């Protein structure tokens, strides 16, 4: 968070201090950002990992060698072999196929819940920052209260109330992510609210909605993307943690977290625990790399 705030602070500096009119913090020039992201070694690695995962998820039905939920009672707890590359689990299901289908669950949770959180958090943050006064105070106290909960504990509490399921896990993760995003957006709104370009837009008669959407939003979007890719990793790990505890995806859904928790019962079948965890770790790492690369890419733009 601190680093994100620093980027926010840097971005709001008027870029050309010699002119008397404050220019809007220019929206990222995406071609430049993409170019420096591709030059960023870790960022590129992350992009490659994410692309592979996306393809795996989309083409799962064609590349997965077995049905991920079909049990084969003649092949229970088989170690990795030519037939089952990553072995089979306690019900004789092919681990590789389950990991391949698990990418769908992983992406579904991390992308959807973070996307919804961004929309929700942005709306809340913009209202809070733009309205000011008691509305702002009230919203921010609620946000403070939500942030006071450790993310995973809040998610556990929400799932406890809603009941364990993949959808409820996604709802919980979305709610957990909203306060941070709304703080980020609010800070940005506050810093540009009284700048000349907003005043000018208001002067020519632009409505509040128009000012927020077409003048303020573009200056926030860079920071939000960085936050989004970092919290996609968090969302993925949160989902697997809940599934691991038995509170997330329910069997037979091939969730990596659930696969790991069944691995806890068969320690000698190491392949049941090592491979799904490695997949999870790799994808979380990929999201983190993209986030880091994006942050550097957006920072480089300011230095240029």
């Amino acid at each position: 968070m601190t680093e994100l705030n620093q980027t926010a602070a840097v971005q709001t500096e008027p870029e050309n201090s010699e002119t008397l009119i404050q220019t809007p913090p220019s929206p990222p020039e995406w071609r430049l950002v993409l170019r420096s992201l591709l030059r960023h070694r870790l960022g590129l690695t992350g992009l490659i990992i994410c692309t592979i995962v996306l393809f795996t998820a989309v083409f799962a039905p064609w590349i997965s060698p077995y049905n991920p939920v079909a049990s084969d009672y003649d092949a229970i707890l088989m170690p990795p072999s030519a037939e089952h590359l990553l072995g089979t689990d306690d019900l004789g299901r092919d681990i590789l196929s389950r990991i391949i289908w698990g990418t769908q669950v992983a992406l579904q949770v991390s992308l959807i819940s973070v996307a919804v959180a961004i929309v929700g958090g942005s709306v809340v943050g913009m209202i809070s920052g733009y309205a000011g006064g008691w509305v702002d105070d009230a919203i921010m106290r609620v946000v403070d209260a939500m942030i006071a909960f450790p993310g995973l504990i809040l998610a556990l509490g929400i799932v406890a109330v809603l009941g364990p399921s993949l959808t409820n896990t996604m709802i919980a993760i979305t709610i957990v992510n909203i306060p941070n995003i709304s703080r980020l957006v609010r800070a940005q709104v506050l810093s540009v609210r009284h700048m000349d370009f907003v005043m000018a837009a208001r002067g020519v008669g632009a409505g509040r909605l128009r000012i927020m959407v077409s003048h303020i939003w573009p200056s926030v979007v860079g920071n939000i993307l960085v936050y989004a890719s970092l919290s996609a990793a968090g969302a993925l790990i949160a989902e697997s943690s809940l599934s691991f505890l038995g509170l997330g995806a329910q069997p037979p859904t091939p969730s990596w977290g659930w696969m790991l928790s069944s691995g806890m019962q068969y320690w000698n079948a190491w392949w049941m625990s090592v491979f799904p965890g490695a997949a999870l770790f790799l994808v979380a790492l990929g999201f983190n790399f993209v986030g880091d690369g994006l942050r550097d890419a957006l920072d480089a733009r300011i230095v240029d």
Partner: protein
Amino acid sequence: MIRYIFSRLMQMLPVLVLVSMAVFSMTLLLPGDPTFSMLGEHATAAERAALRERLGLDMPVPVQYVRWVQHVITGDFGRSLRNGEPVLNMLAQRVPATTQLAIQAIILATLIGVPLGIIAALNRNSIRDVAATAGGMFAMAMPSFWLAMLLIMFFSIFLRWLPPSGYVPFFKDPIESLRLMIMPTITLGTILAGLILRQTRTSMLGVLSADYVRTARAKGMSERRVILVHALRNALIPIVTVVGLQMGALLGGAAITESVFAVPGLGQMVVDGIFNRDFPAVQGAILVIVTFILVLNLLIDIIYAWIDRRVSR
């Protein structure tokens, strides 16, 4: 200064009230009639009504909330729905384990993160820097329960050095307690070590180019003294802040760690409580965790204002 502490306290109060409302409303939001889980399905309507009256469930919600707060303030967190044990007793038994785990994790993470962060900053862009930074990122992306499983497979199943789970209170048998806590500590400390490493590197890099470091060097001070006395001391402030801010994440992570290694702490109390639908226990544990974090953040702010007087004005 006193006025600053007072105003921070005043800011914390509404947050605490909202938190308590959220925790309280957990029971209201629950689907179904709580008397069913307490009396079973075969109780008569009269028995249910009696229980509802005894629990105060027949009163308006705001009244119920005020009563609940009154009880909590006097230390009455209700009784466990599972075995009737007062939640306060359960909390008292579980706080030491979580405290021990958290303290050990912070110590381990600091001992790894700070030196590696300094090494990375001093050798910027060298192979050591890249290795340390990559290590930090790996540590931060590591799903804690997977790390826990790998540790168990290696130390308990393969080497047979450590039992896979168990807990002994520290003051009963310190050595055995520490031995059993080795794997939980590594599990919980790894992510934090990565974060500390990264923050140490960043703030050391910032400080190393500062004028007073150049002055110290120009005075002919030994490099060791420049780094440890002048640079590190100033770099420590943001590091301490990060550790403080991460306490929430640390206690959340404790829920997973404690569940895997069967450590009877607050996190395990939340998870077990959810499974047993023992909501007084869940509420009590969450309330204690969140209050602890709020108080800790308050303390950090006060220490900050004490170090840097500008903050309080």
